[in-house]
């Protein structure tokens, strides 16, 4: 059924690489705000912040938080009523470089909602996007700046992301799909 595409070690390696890439594109840790999108994006954001901290021990100004997009979704009229998660934006984001972090990039609608939400919190100079997995099938003109792994998928497949903090174990797997 489900087959694992990323092990815990793969995930750690991917996050380390992303952290380096973030530092490189930002020319250091200054003015960085890392915002995870609940639930697993927040965990990934914290890990990335930790890695950056280790790489750049002097980066005391590094800020990390969460940005819930529930109240900005464009599909609220459908499905079950969603319970929002906590938004914690650490200080002003005006003029900052914000890195949004999510586990899986798919249609792009969540990121569209996140950009709207972010706009209501302030005006960052730059907004970047980091994702653990990009599975394709975009519905909006959105792309990730930092990608852990590109995984071509069929639309009827499901990507499962498990992280130790939320699930007790850690891997990324794919299941379902008619042609596998």
């Amino acid at each position: 059924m489900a087959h694992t595409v990323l092990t815990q070690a793969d995930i750690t390696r991917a996050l380390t690489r992303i952290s380096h890439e973030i530092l490189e594109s930002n020319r250091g840790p200054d003015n960085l705000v890392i915002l995870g999108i609940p639930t697993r994006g927040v965990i990934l954001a914290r890990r990335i912040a930790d890695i950056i901290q280790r790489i750049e021990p002097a980066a005391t100004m590094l800020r990390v938080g969460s940005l819930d997009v529930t109240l900005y979704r464009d599909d609220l009229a459908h499905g079950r009523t969603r319970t929002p998660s906590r938004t914690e934006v650490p200080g002003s984001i005006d003029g900052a470089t914000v890195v949004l972090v999510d586990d899986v990039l798919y249609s792009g609608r969540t990121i569209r909602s996140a950009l709207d939400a972010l706009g209501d919190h302030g005006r960052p100079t730059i907004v970047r996007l980091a994702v653990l997995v990009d599975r394709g099938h975009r519905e909006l003109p959105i792309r990730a700046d930092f990608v852990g792994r590109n995984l071509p998928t069929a639309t009827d497949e499901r990507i499962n992301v498990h992280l130790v903090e939320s699930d007790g174990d850690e891997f990324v797997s794919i299941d379902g799909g008619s042609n596998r």
Partner: protein
Amino acid sequence: MRHLLSTKDLSRDEAINLLDIAEDMADVAEREVKKLPTLRGKTVVNLFFEDSTRTRISFEAAAKRLSADVINFSAKGSSVSKGESLKDTAQTLAAIGADGVVIRHPASGAPAVLAASGWIDAGIINAGDGTHEHPTQALLDAFTIRRRIHGQASRGTGLDGVSVTIVGDVLHSRVARSNLWLLTTLGADVTFVAPPTLLPSDTSLWPARFSFDLDDAIDAGPDVVMMLRIQTERMHAAFFPSSREYSRVWGLDDARFRRLGPASIVMHPGPMNRGLEISSAAADSANSTVLEQVTNGVSVRMAALYLLLSGDRKESKNVD
């Protein structure tokens, strides 16, 4: 949530979830942009068969902060009293395309009748029906108590072990009823203090304590004292002899207020009769949450509107 008609059937989880969402809504009020796009394209009708500017503007602010369109329909003294029925009004609102109806009505049960009628398919929020319930008032009271006690750590918590003494015209108070069910569901201990004439004749099914002696109740050191508004018309129906006697025996005067603990919370749903059920010193003290209650009212009503008007209505659970 299909409708919000009563706090009686709200489960503890549902109540805490609503209060937690209200915390998120309160956070939004702290931001530079206080508006959310959440209910864009939804229409909320404030259907008020009874005057209450305070409650109406609170719901109006809540709906507008969620980007809903708001229509205020004041049915008092208009065609309704000349025989236009609740049914006709409801069908009119359905034709207008209301997604949510916030109803205030002098008849107990009118929101329940509207919700069960099939005249309109909108989510119904009871904004006070007769002497029955006023669920959003109780929710904002619970929210206010929780914030005072738990502060930033409020999310996910109930009111376990919190002692709340509610004083005044319990018989005619929808606020008292809604608070009874909600506060006890959240784990609080509720005591009602009132003249015997202003308690229901049979309170055997109410999970609360009852007392006729406010001084005893004050000396018991409650965490919260909630004073209910007394309507002076009641004395004409022989519920109590005079406002002077009421104030002396059942009012939170300066002396009683001073006997309360320093951390105790003094609440009033408003509008207050200063000098009658509550003294100015008590109402304006640091213990008083009267203005916080107004602020929190908007957050709680945003949460209620969000829960009612988002999601597929066919899949939502009926809470009444």
